[in-house]
């Protein structure tokens, strides 16, 4: 994972770490177990929140990106939540799974991950 995010070899020193944007980084943030556990955990928190879907999405955005969603963003997130609920309908813990994938989406937002 360190290599995927451009960590230099342990046996050399570098003056500057390169910046990169690669599909392997996307795969890590989406699918690596550690990042998925974070999504499960944030999903659990959002599911447990009281209030409307809108306010929970707002909470999720605040917790991940540190700012509330714009109206366009809220519409996209809410559309995704609807899709996820429809997908998991009738399955075990459908609501929890829907919020997990919403959290996973939030944690992969451009506004969220590692910033310099």
């Amino acid at each position: 994972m360190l290599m995927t995010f451009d960590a230099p070899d342990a046996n050399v020193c570098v003056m500057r770490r390169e910046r990169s944007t690669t599909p392997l980084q996307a795969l890590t943030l989406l699918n690596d177990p550690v990042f998925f556990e974070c999504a499960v955990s944030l999903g659990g928190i959002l599911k447990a929140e009281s209030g409307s879907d809108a306010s929970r999405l707002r909470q999720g955005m605040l917790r991940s990106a540190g700012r509330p969603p714009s109206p366009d963003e809220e519409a996209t997130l809410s559309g995704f939540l609807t899709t996820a609920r429809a997908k998991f309908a009738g399955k075990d813990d459908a609501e929890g799974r829907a919020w997990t994938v919403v959290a996973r989406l939030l944690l992969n937002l451009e506004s969220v991950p590692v910033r310099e």
Partner: protein
Amino acid sequence: MMMGPDMNPVHGLARRGFLTSAASGTGLLALAHQMAGATPVANPLSPKPSHAAPKAKACICIYLEGGPSQIDLFDPKPKLNELHGQKLPDSLTRNVRFAFIQKEGARVLGSPRTFARHGGCGMELSDLLPYLSRHADDIALVRSMHTEAFNHHPGQLLMNTGAPVFGRPSMGSWLNYGLGSPSRDLPGYVVLSSGRGTSGGTSNWGSGFLPSTYQGVLFRNQGDPVLNLSNPPGVDADIQEATIRALSSLGAGQYKHLGDPEIASRVESYELAFRMQASAPELIDLSREDKRTIERYGLDRKEPAIKASRGGGPGQFRSFATNCLLARRLVERGVRFVNLFHASWDHHSNLDNELTHNCLMADQPVAALLDDLKARGMLDSTLVLWLSEFGRTPLGENRGGSSNVTGRDHHPFAFSIWMAGGGIKGGQVLGKTDEIGWSILEDPVHVNDLHATILHLFGMDHLRLTYRFQGRDFRLTDVGGKVVNKLLA
């Protein structure tokens, strides 16, 4: 993936270049245009026309980090055995800065290698390269390369990015920027590494000031080349697709708002990641390869035990051979540029043993790659390069005044590389060095000239492939470069 949309004028320029370089569209930019009601703009990696008809469509660049000894591999110098143990005239070394040699006690080091003529062209090659020797008529051997950099990292940057400083785009980035990549489902620029890792690291395949979409994508050299191709438990392909769509849509909004091309690169990387989940498992599954192919590349060869301090430990034979095979599979699937690194060939000491070991590792798979490309009719359109940052000195290295001399120091004034396929005129030796291999006598080729020639083979004029950054147009060849016409078929 660190990025910040700092809105300085440089980003404005980058954005303009990014948008004007695009032509028709998918993904984020398509979404962005739908939202803005503008004309369609493109995936930055969609194929673009070249300046002239190309000979090469893809490149496999085999980079042997550290400076393989040209004197022991490609450029026979029997005179060194005559002069073995003697001093060189002061006039040769007076103004030279060495990395490690102490001038006072430095002595000529002969070579135990034997050279024979190969192919119809009679190319002289070392006994350490028996497999490659069969391809003498396919390769153009350049014995007159020269560079300014005499240490590894600047040398690697110069050879890979055209300048010995940080922040310039590498060859593969320039080619993907200029031409896009025919592969929609795999990155246009893939990096395969074995051994202990290059001292230049990721800066050797960086995209510099170009958008990071054009950066090389490094596959792993142990276990699966690409990780995390499977979705987490409970996430199926539909949800994954919906997630990517939502991320693209949210990214498009941010892009419209901030105009940072790095947002576009990032969304592009997610969309490509999604497509790779479908394409990469097939790419890295070697089980359908012919048994004979696996044997020819030497994936299962026995690795001789050697105490090679610069090696990178056991397992390299397999990983280097696998990388050669993967390189062919990547090019077959439309990837524009494959960079294959191995470290290290930096033989300051123990040269005979370690060079022998490295050649045992590299010779067979590299030759198999040439064979394989040829058999599949791919060599004509695939440029294969064997490069390093410099060569090694005719003088033995007496680091710290040591009298136990078993290696050679860095030599930037004259070294050897070779090229094959992709419009190269094989079966020729270009350039000539003096009788001890110190200086070039004929046809000097600078790194910038090499780059100009590589771009030319892809139908690109190195003077016209530019990117405006910090107020001026930058090129891979910086302010130099001349196409070496003798190398062209």
